[in-house]
């Protein structure tokens, strides 16, 4: 199982890449596969006798399906079958069977399980045909008959139903209890601000459409290429829902065309494709449309209120942060919105709250920097407002209240180089040239403004397994069921293994994307490097010990007395540290030892006892310049400097792209993204790329990334912390603050569209 799995076509670094060390800038090992079109994504794996499935979605928001008129659809030549809740194959009846590994509290939607419609756009039928075109056409002819019930989808109208979140979810912690007396301190303070914030629904919209290709083998085994952030999560889900043993199902995701959280849970195309393959006893592909990409999880609409109070010298004396977000009727989706406000700044009086309102929508799902994208945004705008109320430089205010320890947990930070982010970011940006007053800079018809914000995100580590196999020809294959959603997993893991074993990178392959590989966590929360990376390094360390043992046992071995710390693995050899000329090439070692391969397996468990004693987080300082058109209110973000403290950077090139991409996301959140719902219909109205705007190339100008020095051996043995989300956090606040500096107009809601700029 730890040989290379041929169909995964796992990429390896180009010949000549050579020796690498952590921190180097190495080209993506999957680059060639991606620029030549050879990389195959979930909908692109061929299968003989493939049937195409097209999903039909509900046009009502709430009610029951009374029946279907399928006659016309079934008459379309090429149509094979139409699956609905009344003729689907057997699915487990237990609600618990539908909970995937990252499901929040409650019970998930069960696709095509019964006649209940609980949100608009719910899948209600799957049309199967010999061609995609026939299935697509027939899907338009499926005529459901509904009994409609009234729905409630508007958050603002149902705030009175706000409740505490129920159940647990990975990565979620409820707000800590009040520290000090926040309201009393607020009342007594000389300088204070209060502000309310609203952020609309956002959809992840990875470029790749959600898809599953289920390849049914002659013996009934299913090999499923699924768009997911965890092959093992999808495998688990399919096994539980359909009662199929793990030996009967393999899920693969060697290439994932972006996900940003949307692939943390199995989406409905997966069970639909599987039930079709089971029913038809043939291979099936189901691909969602871009419109259907708006019919599962989203970043929840969130309303927030913040109150800050300070002494005249800028010392914070009170922080209060309340948030209310939507969830579905079935599950309590939770994310950490307000806790950041109890973590970023030193303060004696802190009160935080977080509530949910159940609506007739699909359950929200983590979207890049879930919670922080809202919570830190609000806090950082509030801090900017406070700085003006104090007539203090926004950066100086943050430095004045710099938290040396976590103020609510009273724990030291494992590492925190935020001060360096502030200093280096400000220097690079030229912050000291900033005029204090709004409306001080102008260029032609545009107001120019500079804004800044702090960002923070968790530094997490989960557990993982990895295997490492050294082959007689000197190739090293390291495997774990990890995922690369564009993050650079293939590259960084191969780098870690190559550096650890002293092998040229082109001789090392890191294999991921198959549920039969050693256990890896779901790729999420910026934890893959700290987790899988540490497992990879641990496996390599174990391999080194095994190899030394083999070397010691050789006849007349010069290593006979060597201890592990007296040898090193470098230049493709095992050699004595003290006498590097005493060496043996690794393939030679295997040959002499009579081994065709040496394999080790390693389990990496986080050192929870040690980690518990620290607050573990990444930090950033974001500085940006905006140009705001006087007449039209259009905003251009012309310059961003993002200074990041995220532990040791292992793969400089891909980490840099992660941060740049995060900044692009932040700009997009600030200026463009919102899914708007027609509450009379309960339906999202702008479910396509023409009307749901994401940043395009013309929206993006100069982005500079600085990694400040940090090395965190509490979070991971590599010193790394993770870079997936931190690039986004704080960016939208910096943009909003820059708009205020440019125009004197404070816009607390996202997205900051021109109408809001003009109206403010």
């Amino acid at each position, binding site marked *: 199982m730890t040989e290379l799995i041929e169909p995964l076509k796992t990429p390896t670094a180009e010949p000549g*890449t050579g020796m690498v060390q952590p*921190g*180097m*800038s*190495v*080209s993506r090992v999957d*680059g*060639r596969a991606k*620029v*030549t*079109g*050879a990389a195959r*994504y979930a909908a692109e794996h061929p299968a003989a006798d493939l049937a195409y499935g097209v999903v039909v979605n509900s046009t009502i928001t709430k009610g029951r399906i*009374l029946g279907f*008129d399928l006659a*016309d659809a079934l008459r*379309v*030549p090429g149509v094979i079958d139409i699956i609905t809740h009344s003729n689907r194959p057997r699915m487990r009846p237990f609600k618990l069977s539908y909970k995937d590994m990252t499901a929040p509290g409650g019970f998930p939607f069960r696709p095509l399980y019964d006649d209940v419609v609980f949100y608009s756009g719910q899948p209600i039928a799957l049309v199967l045909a010999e*061609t*995609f*075109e026939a299935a697509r*056409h027939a899907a338009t*002819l499926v*005529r*459901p*008959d*509904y*009994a*409609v019930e009234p729905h409630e989808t508007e958050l603002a109208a149902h705030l009175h139903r706000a409740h505490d979140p129920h159940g647990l979810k990975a990565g979620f912690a409820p707000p800590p209890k009040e520290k000090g007396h926040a309201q009393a301190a607020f009342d007594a303070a000389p300088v204070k601000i209060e502000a309310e914030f609203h952020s609309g629904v956002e959809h992840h919209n*990875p*470029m*790749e*459409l959600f898809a599953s290709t289920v390849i049914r083998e002659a013996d009934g085994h299913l090999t499923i290429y699924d768009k997911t952030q965890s092959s093992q999560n999808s495998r688990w889900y399919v096994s539980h829902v359909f009662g199929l043993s793990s030996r009967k199902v393999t899920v693969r995701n060697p290439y994932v*065309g*972006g996900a940003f959280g949307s692939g943390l849970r199995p989406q409905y195309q997966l069970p639909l494709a599987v039930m079709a393959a089971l029913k038809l006893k043939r291979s099936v592909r189901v691909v969602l449309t*871009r419109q259907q990409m708006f019919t599962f999880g989203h970043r929840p609409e969130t309303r927030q209120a913040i109150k800050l109070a300070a002494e005249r010298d800028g010392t914070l004396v009170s922080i209060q942060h309340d948030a209310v977000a939507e969830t579905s009727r079935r599950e309590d989706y939770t994310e950490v919105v307000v806790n950041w406000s109890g973590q970023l700044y030193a303060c004696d009086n802190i009160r935080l709250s977080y509530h949910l309102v159940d609506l007739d929508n699909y359950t929200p799902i983590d979207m890049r920097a879930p919670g922080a994208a809202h919570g830190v945004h609000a806090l950082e705008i509030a801090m900017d407002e406070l700085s003006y109320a104090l007539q203090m430089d926004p950066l100086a205010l943050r430095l004045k209240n710099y938290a040396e320890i976590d103020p609510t947990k009273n724990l030291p930070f494992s590492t925190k180089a935020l001060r360096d982010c502030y200093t280096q970011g400000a220097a*690079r940006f030229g912050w000291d040239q900033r005029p204090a007053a709004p409306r001080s800079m102008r260029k032609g018809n545009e107001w120019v403004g500079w804004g800044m914000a702090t960002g923070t995100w968790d530094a997490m580590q989960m557990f993982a397994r990895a295997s490492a196999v050294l082959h007689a020809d000197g190739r090293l294959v390291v495997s774990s069921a990890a995922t690369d959603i*564009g993050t650079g997993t293939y590259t960084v893991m191969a780098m870690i293994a190559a550096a650890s074993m002293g092998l040229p990178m082109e001789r090392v392959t890191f294999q991921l994307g198959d549920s039969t590989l050693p256990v890896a966590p779901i790729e999420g929360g910026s934890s893959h490097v700290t987790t899988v990376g540490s497992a990879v390094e641990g496996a390599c360390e174990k391999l080194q010990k095994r190899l030394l043992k083999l070397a010691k046992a050789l006849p007349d071995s010069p290593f006979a007395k060597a201890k592990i710390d007296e040898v090193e693995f470098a230049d493709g050899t095992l050699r004595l540290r003290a006498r590097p000329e005493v060496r043996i090439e690794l393939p030679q070692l295997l040959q002499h030892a009579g081994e065709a391969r040496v394999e080790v397996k390693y389990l990496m468990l986080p050192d929870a006892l040690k980690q518990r004693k620290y607050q573990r987080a990444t930090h950033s300082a974001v500085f940006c310049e905006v140009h705001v058109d006087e007449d039209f209110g259009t905003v251009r973000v012309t310059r961003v400097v993002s200074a990041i403290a995220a532990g040791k*950077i292992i793969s*400089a090139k891909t980490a*840099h*792209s992660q941060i*740049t*991409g995060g*900044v*692009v996301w932040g700009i*997009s959140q600030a200026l463009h993204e919102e899914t708007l719902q027609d509450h009379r219909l309960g339906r999202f109205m702008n479910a*396509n*790329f*023409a009307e749901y705007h994401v940043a*395009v*190339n*013309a929206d*993006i100008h*100069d982005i*500079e*990334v600085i*990694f*400040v*020095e940090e090395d965190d051996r509490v979070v991971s043995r590599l010193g790394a912390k993770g870079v997936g989300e931190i690039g986004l956090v704080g960016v939208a606040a910096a943009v909003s603050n820059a708009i205020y500096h440019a125009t004197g107009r404070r816009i607390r809601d996202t997205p900051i569209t021109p109408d809001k700029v003009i109206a403010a």
Partner: protein
Amino acid sequence: MLTENHATATPPSPVTMAAPLYPIELTVNGTRHQFEIETWVTLLDLLRERMLLTGSKKGCDHGQCGACTVLSNGRRINACLALAVSQNGHEITTIEGLADGNQLHPLQQAFIDHDALQCGYCTPGQICSAVGLMREGEAHTTAGVRELMSGNVCRCGAYPQIVQAVSQVMGIAPAAQPEAPVRPTVVGTVLS
């Protein structure tokens, strides 16, 4: 509780006969192919589902994202908006046809050097689009590249590197130099 049947208003006309097939001829990546094909098949679906040339991507199927960009007689088009029959007689170049054996097209190499991709799903469209852009001769500055590459959405946000890669191949200054394939990062310096 009210009952309603949403489909009764304007039922689409049912198709009960197999869609007729039309003969077409396409040259795809230098090789001539003949097809008997229904009019409702797009060039994109022909490439992906019938020729298994899955390098051209489907991101929206509505001409809104550029993931499906290919070259038709040298012009960049959205293959999802082109019915295959309308391309009869055309020369189509897809991402699979750009490299010369193992030798990558300069744009492909530049995308790797600048890390102008993350998940890679928009990448074939970006590269084909850039080939078309170069042929058009309209972009003369990095701002021009940005503007004229804006029909290709990259959700991973690789835009700055895409502009660097395309500008470098086009010889537009001042493009940042591609990093040497292996360069140690000096902590505290600006990588761009």
